[in-house]
């Protein structure tokens, strides 16, 4: 027994380890990327970042079919692409205990939407647990696998981004091993063809009823009864901890198993109270469950449908509900100040590409999800749409095929990770009914890693990094599909890239460029720095407009006009600013070259 600080993500990994987990798969996405990174450290568990969330789920399903303890972890939107296998898998009595971890993102700290996956857990007939702190993240992971084992039900552990990244103390225990019996040869159980799947519809309902019976007195739920019977608060997850900060003398029913809720227990407890208030983020999930049971309760009247519910938001909501009197909150004055948008890192290879695109004749730029989503923000503002992983290619085709008398050039951008995640089927589809009249230029930004989430491997990483084993050539794959005009360019060779991309934008047909440039962060670009000679600089700001962080306009001694400058401690020597300078005022520091030798 040892105590340790752990994030919610690390605690889930630890819980899976202690529970005798055999296989874990994931696709990197915030907020859950840390789960698999932590699991990687346990030799007893086979783990992988799969090509996408659907593949990750299927890999975990295979392990569960074998009778092994399996887990799949993904960010909330990953469940959308995974829903196809999930909806059939949950029809089957679960063999090896199975846990799906979904990282929801109330407040959208790093996501394109705020979907509440509790609704998808219910939709897929799973039971759902919702931990409040790291210790519970560990305990609930273990308990969820026990429930899965006892009731043959696939479990969902729902965690929110705040809890994924928050640290608190956990107690560690030893790992318990379990047998892996191997897959049964029972096609009637595992082949979800209509004749076999029909009976499973009622089976899933009955299975949930059995879990509901278990839920009546599960230790996952906690009832704290106060003497004051006027109000009962029902809540779950981190919100319980936020509520406790208010130090109120109030009754709380904290749910750990949030679906199914025991109707018998809910009726018994709520019967004691005049008023029931539900505190939950995003959709009124628990509130609706209670209302379906005929329990009168309120929630969304006082608490927002969007964003996180902070301690202050809970206090204000409870004041509005008349549960607490006048808030004694400190008057906080927060004046708006200059925002700080995320930008491409210093030396990022994508910077040159978007500088080229911004100056090009492209009519529309269709973006996708990855670091290059940042091109939607200043200083480039070069994305007309971003929706979901890999969608840019299909969207581009729809734009081309539905246009009338408009052949203005379209540039469509996708990264290497996203290409492998779900771009490939769309590229195959692109050639179907292609007439050569379209003017579209695809830019595949290959920085050799899934960079936005911290530099995980993907399908082509092995070509550049001996530690990775996947070595797909994007260019050769596209040529095999049937594209004739696929060119590789070095992103740091600004002038050559600009010339070729502009030529393609000026011509009809589908052109594809694989733009190579290793992620400056992951592959630690660190070359001699550049500096500005202010006596040559004409103050045109071409370099400044690339937005590279070390650059700024500066007042030099004895020079009247502002001239560009480079912070030498920040510069990593990518050379793009020097290449966009029209008067060669930006020079390589020879001084540092000497030091390097």
């Amino acid at each position, binding site marked *: 027994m040892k105590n340790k600080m752990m994030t919610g993500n690390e605690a889930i990994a630890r819980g899976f380890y202690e529970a005798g987990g055999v296989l874990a798969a994931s696709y990197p996405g915030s907020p859950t990327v840390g789960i698999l990174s932590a699991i990687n450290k346990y030799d007893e568990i086979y783990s992988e970042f799969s090509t996408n969330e659907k593949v990750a789920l299927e890999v975990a399903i295979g392990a569960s079919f074998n009778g092994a303890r399996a887990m799949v972890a993904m960010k909330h939107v990953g469940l959308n692409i995974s829903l196809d296998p999930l909806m059939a898998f949950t029809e089957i009595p679960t063999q090896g205990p199975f846990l799906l971890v979904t990282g929801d993102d109330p407040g959208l700290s790093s996501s394109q939407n705020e979907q509440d996956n509790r609704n998808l857990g219910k939709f897929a007939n799973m039971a759902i647990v919702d931990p409040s702190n790291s210790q519970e993240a560990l305990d609930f992971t273990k308990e969820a696998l026990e429930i899965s084992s006892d009731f043959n039900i696939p479990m969902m552990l729902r965690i929110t981004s705040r809890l994924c990244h928050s640290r608190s103390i956990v107690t560690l225990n030893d790992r318990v091993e379990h047998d892996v019996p191997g897959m049964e040869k029972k096609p009637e159980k595992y082949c979800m063809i209509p004749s076999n799947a029909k009976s499973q519809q009622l089976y899933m309902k009955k299975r949930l009823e059995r879990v509901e019976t278990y839920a009546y007195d599960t230790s996952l739920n906690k009832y704290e009864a106060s003497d004051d019977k006027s109000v009962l608060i029902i809540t779950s997850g981190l919100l319980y901890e936020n509520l406790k900060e208010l130090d109120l003398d109030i009754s709380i029913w904290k749910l750990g198993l949030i679906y199914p809720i025991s109707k018998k227990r809910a009726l018994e407890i709520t019967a004691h109270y005049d008023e029931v208030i539900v505190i939950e983020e995003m959709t009124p999930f628990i509130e609706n469950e209670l209302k379906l049971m005929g329990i009168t309760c309120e929630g969304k009247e006082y608490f927002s449908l969007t964003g996180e519910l902070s301690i202050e938001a809970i206090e204000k909501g409870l004041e509005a509900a008349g549960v607490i009197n006048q808030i004694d909150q400190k008057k906080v004055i927060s004046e708006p100040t200059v925002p700080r948008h995320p930008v491409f890192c210093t030396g990022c290879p994508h910077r040159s590409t978007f500088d080229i695109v911004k100056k090009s004749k492209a009519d529309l730029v269709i973006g996708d999800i990855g670091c290059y989503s940042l091109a939607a923000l200043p200083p480039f503002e070069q994305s007309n749409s971003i929706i979901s992983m890999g969608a840019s290619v299909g969207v581009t085709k729809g734009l081309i095929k539905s246009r009338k008398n408009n052949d203005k050039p379209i540039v469509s951008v996708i990264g290497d990770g996203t290409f492998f995640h779900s771009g490939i089927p769309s590229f195959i589809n692109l050639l179907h009914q292609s007439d050569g009249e379209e003017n579209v230029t695809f830019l595949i930004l290959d920085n050799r890693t899934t960079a936005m989430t911290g530099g995980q491997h993907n399908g082509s990483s092995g070509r550049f990094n001996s530690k990775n084993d996947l070595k797909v050539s994007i260019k050769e794959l596209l040529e095999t599909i049937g594209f004739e005009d696929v060119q590789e360019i070095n992103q740091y060779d600004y002038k050559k890239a600009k010339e070729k991309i502009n030529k393609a934008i000026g011509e009809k047909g589908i052109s594809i460029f694989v733009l190579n440039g290793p992620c400056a*962060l992951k592959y630690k670009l660190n070359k001699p720095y550049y500096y500005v000679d202010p006596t040559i600089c004409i103050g045109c700001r071409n370099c400044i407009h690339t937005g590279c962080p070390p650059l700024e306009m500066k007042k030099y001694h004895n020079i009247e006009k502002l001239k560009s400058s480079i912070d030498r401690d920040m510069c990593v020597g990518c050379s793009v600013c020097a290449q966009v300078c029209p008067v060669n005022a930006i020079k390589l520091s020879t001084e540092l070259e000497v030091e390097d030798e």
Partner: protein
Amino acid sequence: MNKNILLSGMGGQGLVLMTDIICEAALKAGYEVKSNDVVGLSQRGGMVWGNVRIGDKIHSPNIREGHGDYLLAMEPLEGLRWHHMLKDNGKIILNEKHINPVLVQQEVEDYPSEAIEALKEDYEILSINAAKEAVKIGNEKIANVILIGLLAKALASDELKIDEELWRESIKDFVPEKAVELNFKAFELGFKN
């Protein structure tokens, strides 16, 4: 007797490491600790903020507005952005090195130097150009540990008791072995400041 420590800065400045070190030192000293940090998009030069709460019983990792005891700001504008989280007598520990947000770089907005200067009227500020000092003794990466040194010193005269040695132990737990000595030097620089 809970102490609420806020951290702010931008992606890449090592805020997660700072959070790790503070948490571990407090844990070693026998306190209950909870923390928050924000990652994701923030790795790309966006703003980051987080916090550590230390005490006898902590429920939420979140700090309520106006309840912060210390604000460790790795960049002045990011100190300005979060000062409203502090108590009236809260302290700011500041790295003076400016890093322009993109709108300042593009000359759309001015860097809010006057508003940052005005913070001195409301708060006690322990200020150092940690980036510059860090480069002097090694490299800019260890600027964050200089600020940890300043915090350790400030906490030493506060109610919270965390031995100097525990800070060193937790630094050792989290930095790569070959960088331990350099990080000790950085800690020292802040602690003796």
